[in-house]
C-alpha cells in the first residue's frame, strides 16, 4: 500500500487529509473525534483578538443548493470566526496537540491589520505547541466589513505586509489562506510569496446568495426577513478551486510555493485531482459537515488504492503531475480531430443528444426511424456537448481521427503534426497574444 504520510511546509501528518478551519475544528471535542476517525490534521477554526469574542447571528447561518434526492451540492454560510474566548481555544489546542503529537495542528488567525495585533497573538499560539499558523485572508462576509478577512485578501500589498509581520514575529510556518473573490488569483499568491509565506491555501468561500424566498422576498438564509451575502463552498465550488490552485502551481513567479488545496473536496478522487494540479495536501470542510468524520476512511482507501494502481509510492510522487499538461488555449493542438460516436448497444433512445445538438448546437445528430440516433460527421464539430448530456456513461465517446483520415466537416485530411493558434493562418497577429 502506498505511503500516504506527508510533510507540508515541514509539518508532518499521517495522510494529506486535513480538516479546514471551520465548525468541524472549532473545539477540542470535535478535533479529538476527527483525529480518532483518522484525519491527518486540522486547521483550527479562526481565532480573533483577545477580549470579548465576536458574536454570530442567532438565526440560521446556512443556505444550500441541492441536487437529486436532496444531495447537498453547495453550502453557503454567514458564520464569522470563532465565537469562543481566545484563552479557551488556546488551552484546548495545547491539550489536543499534546495528546495527538503525530497529527498536524495549524491555527487559523484573523486580527486587525496592525502589526501590534499580530505581535500580540503570535506568541500565545506558539505557546500551544501548534505546528503552524494559517492567515485567514479569505472570509468574504461579516469580518470583511471590519477590514479583515477578504478585505485584506483582495489587496496584494496588505497580504504581503501582514505576511511579513508574521514571518518576522514567529518561528512557526506561515500559510496564507486566499480568497477566490478576486479577478486573478496569481497576484495574491505572488504577494504571499513576496511577504515570505511558507505556503498558500485556497480557496476560502465564494461570495454568494444561494436563493431567495419567493414568499417573503428575502435572500436565504433569512434573519428576521433580511439576508446578507455569504460564502459558498462544497462540491459546486470545486471547479473554481481546482483552476485557482492550478493557476498558482504553474505561475513561474510563484514557482515552488507549496499549496494546500481547499474547495469542494468530497471524495478521494477530488483529493487526487487537487494533488495532481499542484496541491501538497487538501483541506475539507463541507463534505465532513455533510457526512461526518467517517468519510476520511473512504478518502484514505481510495487514494491509496489509486496510487497503488498507478505505482505512486508517496504523495510527493503525485503532487503536480498534471501541471505540465495545463496550458493556454493558444497552445492546444488544432490538428487534433475527433468525432462523436454513439454506441448503439448502450443507447437507450432518450434523444437528449439530439435535442441538445439540434436545438442549441450544430445539427450534427440525426434522429432516424425507431429512435436510432446517429452522428452526422459532416456537421459534428466535436464539441462534446452530446457526451455531457447523455444519461448513459460511455454511450457517446469522442473518437480521434487518425492522421490521413478525412474530416468530413472540413473536407480536409487530418494531419499528424502539432499546430496551434499561434501559427494558424487565420490569426491576424503572427504570434497572437492571449
Amino acid at each position, binding site marked *: 500500500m502506498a505511503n500516504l504520510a506527508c510533510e507540508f511546509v515541514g509539518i508532518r501528518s499521517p495522510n494529506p487529509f486535513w480538516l479546514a478551519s471551520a465548525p468541524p475544528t472549532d473545539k477540542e471535542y470535535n478535533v479529538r473525534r476527527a483525529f480518532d476517525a483518522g484525519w491527518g490534521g486540522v486547521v483550527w477554526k479562526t481565532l480573533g483578538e483577545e477580549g470579548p469574542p465576536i458574536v454570530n447571528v442567532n438565526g440560521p447561518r446556512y443556505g444550500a443548493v441541492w441536487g437529486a*434526492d436532496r444531495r447537498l451540492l453547495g453550502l453557503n454560510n454567514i458564520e464569522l470566526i470563532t465565537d469562543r474566548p481566545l484563552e479557551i481555544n488556546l488551552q484546548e489546542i495545547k491539550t489536543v496537540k499534546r495528546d495527538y503529537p503525530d497529527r498536524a495542528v495549524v491555527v487559523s488567525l484573523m486580527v486587525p491589520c496592525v502589526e501590534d495585533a499580530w505581535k500580540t497573538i503570535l506568541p500565545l499560539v506558539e505557546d500551544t505547541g501548534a505546528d503552524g499558523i494559517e492567515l485567514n485572508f479569505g472570509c468574504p462576509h461579516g469580518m470583511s466589513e471590519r477590514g479583515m478577512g477578504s478585505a485584506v485578501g483582495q489587496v496584494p500589498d496588505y497580504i504581503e505586509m501582514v505576511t511579513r509581520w508574521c514571518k518576522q514575529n514567529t518561528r512557526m510556518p506561515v500559510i496564507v489562506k486566499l480568497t477566490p473573490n478576486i479577478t486573478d488569483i496569481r497576484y495574491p499568491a505572488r504577494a504571499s510569496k513576496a511577504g515570505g509565506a511558507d505556503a498558500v491555501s485556497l480557496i476560502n468561500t465564494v461570495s454568494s446568495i444561494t436563493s431567495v424566498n419567493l414568499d417573503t422576498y428575502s435572500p436565504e438564509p433569512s434573519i428576521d426577513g433580511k439576508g446578507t451575502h455569504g460564502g459558498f463552498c462544497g462540491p459546486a465550488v470545486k471547479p473554481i478551486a481546482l483552476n485557482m490552485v492550478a493557476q498558482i502551481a504553474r505561475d513561474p513567479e510563484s514557482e515552488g510555493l507549496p499549496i494546500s488545496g481547499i474547495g469542494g473536496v468530497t471524495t478521494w478522487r477530488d483529493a487526487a485531482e487537487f494533488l495532481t494540479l499542484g496541491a501538497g495536501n487538501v483541506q475539507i470542510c463541507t463534505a465532513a459537515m455533510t457526512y461526518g468524520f467517517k468519510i476520511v476512511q473512504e478518502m484514505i482507501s481510495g487514494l491509496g488504492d489509486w496510487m497503488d494502481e498507478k505505482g505512486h509510492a508517496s504523495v510527493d510522487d503525485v503532487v503536480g503531475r498534471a501541471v505540465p499538461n495545463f496550458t493556454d488555449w493558444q497552445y492546444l493542438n488544432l490538428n487534433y480531430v475527433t468525432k462523436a460516436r454513439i454506441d448503439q448497444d448502450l443507447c437507450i433512445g432518450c434523444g*437528449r443528444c*439530439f435535442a441538445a445538438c439540434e436545438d442549441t448546437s450544430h445539427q450534427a445528430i440525426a434522429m432516424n426511424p425507431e429512435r436510432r440516433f446517429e452522428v452526422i460527421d459532416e456537421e459534428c464539430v466535436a464539441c462534446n456537448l452530446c457526451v455531457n448530456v447523455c444519461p448513459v456513461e460511455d454511450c457517446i465517446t469522442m473518437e480521434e481521427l487518425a492522421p490521413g483520415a478525412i474530416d468530413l466537416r472540413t473536407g480536409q485530411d487530418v494531419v499528424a503534426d502539432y499546430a496551434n493558434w499561434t501559427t494558424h493562418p487565420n490569426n491576424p497577429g503572427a504570434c497572437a497574444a492571449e
Partner: protein
Amino acid sequence: MANSPFTPGIAAGRLSSEALDRNFTDLHPPLDKHEALVAADRCYFCHDAPCVTACPTTIDIPLFIRQIVTGIPEAAARTILDQNILGGMCARVCPTETLCEEACVREVAEGRPVEIGRLQRFATDTMMARDSHPYGRAENTGKRVAVVGAGPAGLACAHRLAMYGHEVVVFDARPRPGGLNEYGVASYKTVDGFAQAEVEWLLGIGGIKVEQSARLSGGLDLDALIRDHDAVFLGIGLAGVNALQIEGVDLQGVDDAVEFIADLRQAEDLSNLAIGRNVVVVGGGMTAIDVAVQSKLLGAETVTIVYRRGRDRMSASSYEQDLATSKGVRIVTNARPVRVVGDGAVQEAEFEYTRDVPNGLDSTGETFRLAADQVFMAIGQKLEDGPGTLQIEGGKIKVDESGRTSLDGVWAGGDCATGGDDLTVTAVAEGRDAAEDIHKAIHAGAGTAIETPRQGIESG
C-alpha cells in the same frame, strides 16, 4: 361463531373487518412529496418522448414530471388534465406496464421505468385537494349535446364540450355516474370513493346535467335524442356479458364476474359480502384477474383462474398475472370448461386440456375437476342496447377516427365503439376527440384549428 376461509359453501365475513380493511387498501399507495421528487428526478426529459407516444391520451409526460421537480405540481396536473380530464383515475387504473411505463427509456435501460402513474397521481391528487375546478366554460353557445353513458368516454366528452360552452345532458342507466370506474375496476385501485369524488370534481366545470337511472331504449330513444339535441354521443360501454353454453351453468353459485364486482364495489360493508370457499374463475382478462384477486382478499380459501390458452395469450398483462399469483391465486392454463357439476348448488367444475391447432383450439382428451363453491364467468362483455339503426362491426358501433358513427349527428366512443383497447384511458381519449369533432361540426364559425379554452387556474 364467526366464519373463516374454511367455512364450507358461500359465506360472508370470512375475515375480520380489520383484515378486510388491510386487504382492500391502496394497491399503490400515494407518493409523498419527497418520494415524488426522487421519482420525478429519474425522468430524462426525453426528446419526442416514447412514453408520450405510448399514452392513449398523449399526456406530455416529461413536461409534467419536470413541473413536479420544479415544485409546481398543480401546473403538472394541468398538463395532465389538458389531455386527460380523468387523469386522476387513469393514474390509478392504467396498466402502465403495457403503456407509458413500458415505453419509458429507463424500462428499456434498467427494467425500472420512471413511475409515471404514481407521479401522475401525485400531481392530480395535489390539484384535486383544492376545492376548485381548474377549467372554466367558454361563453354559452346555445348548442345542446346529449351524452349517453356517464363512463369515462361520456364524461370526457361532456367535459370537453362544456369547456367549449355547449350545454350537455348526460343520461346513464345506473344509479351512480362513473361507469366501470364506479362499478368495475378493482377496489384496491380506487379506494376511498375516489370514482364519485372525481366525477363530482369534473362536473365542477358547470354546464353538464347528469340524469341517472335513464336507460337508452328503455325510455330514451335515439331518434328523439337526435331531434332534441344538436349532437349525440354514445358512450354506453359493453353492458352485456358473454354466456357460456355448457352443462350446469344454471346451478346456484355460477355467477357473472362483472356483476359480482359491481356488487363488491357498491358494498357498504365488505364483511357482509358472501364469497365461496373454493372459487374457480373462467377467463383470462383483467376481469378474471380482478374477480380472482378480490375473492382471495375477501377470504376465499382457494382461488383458481382457468384459461383456455397459454399464459402469453392472456389479455391480462404479466404484471396483473403476477399480482394475482402473489395474492395466492393459482393460474391454470390450456384448459377449458366442459361442465359444472352439483346438486342444486355447484360443487365442482370440470375442464379439459387444450392445445392450439391451426384453426382454433382442440381438446387433448384429458379432463380434470376442481372443487368449487363458486364459479365466476369472466369471458368478456358485449354491446347491449346498441340502437339498431347504427352500423355495427365486430360487435361494436362502427366509428371513424373522429368518433362519427354511420348516423349523421351521432358520435360514439369508449368500449362500445370500434378502435382502441377496452381501457379507461382509451375511452377518455375517444370521448375527448369526439367532443372536438362535435364542436367543429356544430359550432358555426369555429375555426378548424381547435384551441382549448385555457382558463386561469384561479377561476374556480
